[in-house]
């Protein structure tokens, strides 16, 4: 039997202190970081530009862009599959480049242009990548699909869709547990041609 007292903040903070002191060659005995004593969340009023529309919102400074999109703006097309930057389901574009919304703090993207899956189609007319995903059955459950499509469009723009091998490599940050992978590659190939013509 052994007794232990744990709270996660102490573990994290202590770990950091230990790591820092180890690098100096001495570990203080019983290092325990002081607790964060603030009790009121820090908030900020910001304007988010999403899919061409400005939204004035008040956010907790800890709020991720993913949660802001979903909970503050009601744009639930971007999905949370891990909240840790490991699945790609939350992929969005910031100034046309792909980013993980779960690893982006909302306050950090004020004034930048954000595009989500909801901003791709023009009216009823789908983006070629969206159409290609349908044509090639590049999804089953569809939960990873918003992120896949956002990544796929960026992948083509980056010039990383030159070969099947490149597509597979540069689409590997987007997990698909239904494993539609070969169909996703086929979809990117189809849309690539149309985007390049387009």
């Amino acid at each position, binding site marked *: 039997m052994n007794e232990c007292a*744990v709270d996660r903040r102490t573990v994290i903070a202590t770990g950091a202190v230990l790591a820092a002191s180890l690098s100096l060659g001495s570990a203080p005995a019983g290092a325990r970081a002081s607790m964060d004593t603030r009790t009121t969340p820090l908030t900020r009023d910001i304007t988010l530009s999403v899919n061409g529309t400005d939204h004035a919102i008040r956010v*907790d400074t800890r709020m991720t862009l993913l949660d802001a999109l979903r909970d503050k703006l009601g744009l639930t097309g971007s*999905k949370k599959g891990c909240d*840790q930057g490991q699945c790609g389901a939350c992929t969005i574009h910031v100034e046309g480049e792909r980013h993980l919304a779960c690893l982006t703090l909302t306050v950090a993207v004020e004034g930048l242009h954000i595009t989500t*899956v909801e901003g791709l189609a023009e009216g009823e007319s789908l983006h070629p990548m969206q159409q290609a995903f349908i044509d090639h*059955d590049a999804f*089953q*459950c569809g*939960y990873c699909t918003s992120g896949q499509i956002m990544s796929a469009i960026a992948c083509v723009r980056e010039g990383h869709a030159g070969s099947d091998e490149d597509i597979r490599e540069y689409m590997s*940050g987007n997990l698909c547990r239904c494993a539609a992978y070969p169909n996703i590659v086929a979809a990117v190939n189809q849309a690539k041609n149309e985007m390049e013509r387009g």
Partner: protein
Amino acid sequence: MSVGNTAAPAPLANMGEPIRRSESVAKVTGRLVYAADAPGQSPLQAYFLTSAIARGRVLSIDAAPAEALDGVVKVYTHLNAPRRIATPYTQKGGYASDTNMPLTGPEIHHDGQIIAMVIAETYEIARDASHRIVTRYDATTPAATIDSPGVDILHPDALAEKEKKAGDFAAALAAAPVKVEGVYSTPAQHQNAIELYSTTASWSAGELTIHEPSQFVVELANGAAAMMGIDPSKVHVVNPYMGGAFGGKGFMTQRTALVAGAARELARPVRNVVTRDQGFTLATYRSETKHHVRLAADHDGRLLAYGHESWEMQSRHDDYPLAGFGVTTAMYGKPAILTRVNLVKADRQTSGFMRAPVEMPYMYPLESAMDELAFALDMDPIELRRVNDIRESPIDGARFTSRSLMRCYDEAAASFGWSKRDPTPGSMREGDWLIGYGCATAGYPTHMAPATARVTLSADGSARVEVAGHDSGQGTYTALGQVAARELGIDPERVHVAMGDSRLPAAPASSNSLATASIGSAVKLAIDKLRSRFGNALPDDRDRSAAFARLGVSEIGDLGEFLPPGTNPEVLGMLRKGQVPFANQARGDESKNGKPLMFAFGAEFVEVRIHRLTREIRVPRMTGAFAAGRIVNPRTARSQLMGGMIWGMSSALLEATEIDEKRGRYVNDSLGEYLMAVNADVPRVDVIMVPEEDPEVNPLGVKGIGELGIVGTAAAVANAVHHATGKRIRDLPIVMDKLLA
């Protein structure tokens, strides 16, 4: 649709059209609403704190630092938890997938058990607060792996029926000229659907509405009602679409009642989204298994003896036995058979469904051993299967309704180029890469469950199908629309399918690959009833309005009730209560009372390339051929079979939930550390659907395909690895260090 689109294979005999999923546009535009997307009335956010030990007690839990935060509404611990009523285990007449009810006392029974639930105005506050709770534990050393001291090994009498036996195994083994023997293991694995587990609960006038991903909404509604102590008619579960499930969203977990209980007490809607790491311990999973397999044959390869003893990891509090001998003994020959299953009770959460829960861990050792036997006989592994292909069960002589195993082998082998294989291990190379070809059998029983569905036909020629079924990506909406359209003689575009709502006609759990067969059969029966109202011929476009005018209605609906053959009408009552008739099931792998065996089969071929020096393993291509009765939609069917094969490959080479043996804790509980196949791991997958007709299995002639694809792949990979290297890895996953050892 572009020409030559492999995603939409042209239908062969007994296949429907490869039409697109009915919800396609919503899925690519982000408009589809999943459970955690449901627009709410700004719910409170619940965040769980889970135990940092696997066994012991909470000595004290200090929530004051959490409660001091602005925006924290309540912190629940075992001292003040919301009121719930315990429900028994699903296999014992209740609704719980794991009966360990959190926050009822200080005891901790497994790693990551819920020890507190913070309710706050925002997610950020709830998460922060949970980290401020200070817990003191009295930790006891857990017994957490099959070989740990302190586990209890049980051999329950109740499983005797599943322990198949035939002839005198010991004598047959002793007399046989060729024998192989091995101990195999499969690791713990987690379903890890990309959609996280979640619950949103809200109360209004004593009625509870739940948005939660569920593969069995009728069960969830009845289970939540039982735990809340209210009438089931007062619970409404809404979950039209799921972001993958794979078994993880099967039966109700303890989370639902916790969240619903908090929502009731606080009189506000409450949402909980389980974090990825918490999802590893707050739902069921595939537990690890171990197998001792013995095979013996004559010099021509005919099986003489098959012995199989297994050990399956279990929680202390519930039994989820697999005992997959009904499947393995339906594969080959007429050997003497001896099987035995042991349940290993340990300090772990309760295990449960994960894609091919029974078949994957039991077919892997059998199909590996078959390859070992072929090697010992110096025989082609396909020929070994051919010599032992059967028309009847070696246990009781029961016949198969249909069995196309060798056709699958022949088609897959031809397409794969098996004839180019030099059987000598290590003989095929390209540069620094050793090449291996391997194959294995996939077999999945055709199970069926009772189901009901309402079909309504309108005078304008459109139709509505309503059923409390589920679509977690299989394409159930599309398939049911096609089934109804075919029977009604109208275009599938004219059929609207509504599912994922507990108030619709009751449907079984979306598991065991039985949805299309069971619900589809209920749809067909409903349409048969409709037809009888029109003098046994449904009106077509020309006479429809006149026919409806004669009846004096603008639409007409009927309920179809499908009772699987061999079950009694009582099972429909159980279905409506959200219960599985475990004692009275229509299982494809059970042949008692003269019932035939019902199976879908497949043959899977894999090429591996293993680096000569580093032993890096790649799978450049896989080919699978499958025969599964009528294929309703070749497009969605191909995607499911392909996904299954990739799961199998992933299972063979990547997936394992690693356990810290001393502490009984999972160590790789994230998508970064729990490896599963990514796009770069999957260059090429060829799926062949072999036409097969089986009018006997059910009114639609449909067998399940959702799990078939995964069943043989892991063994095919292992067999290919042996062919490439001469090394037999019997413990999954097969990783570089095992090949270097």
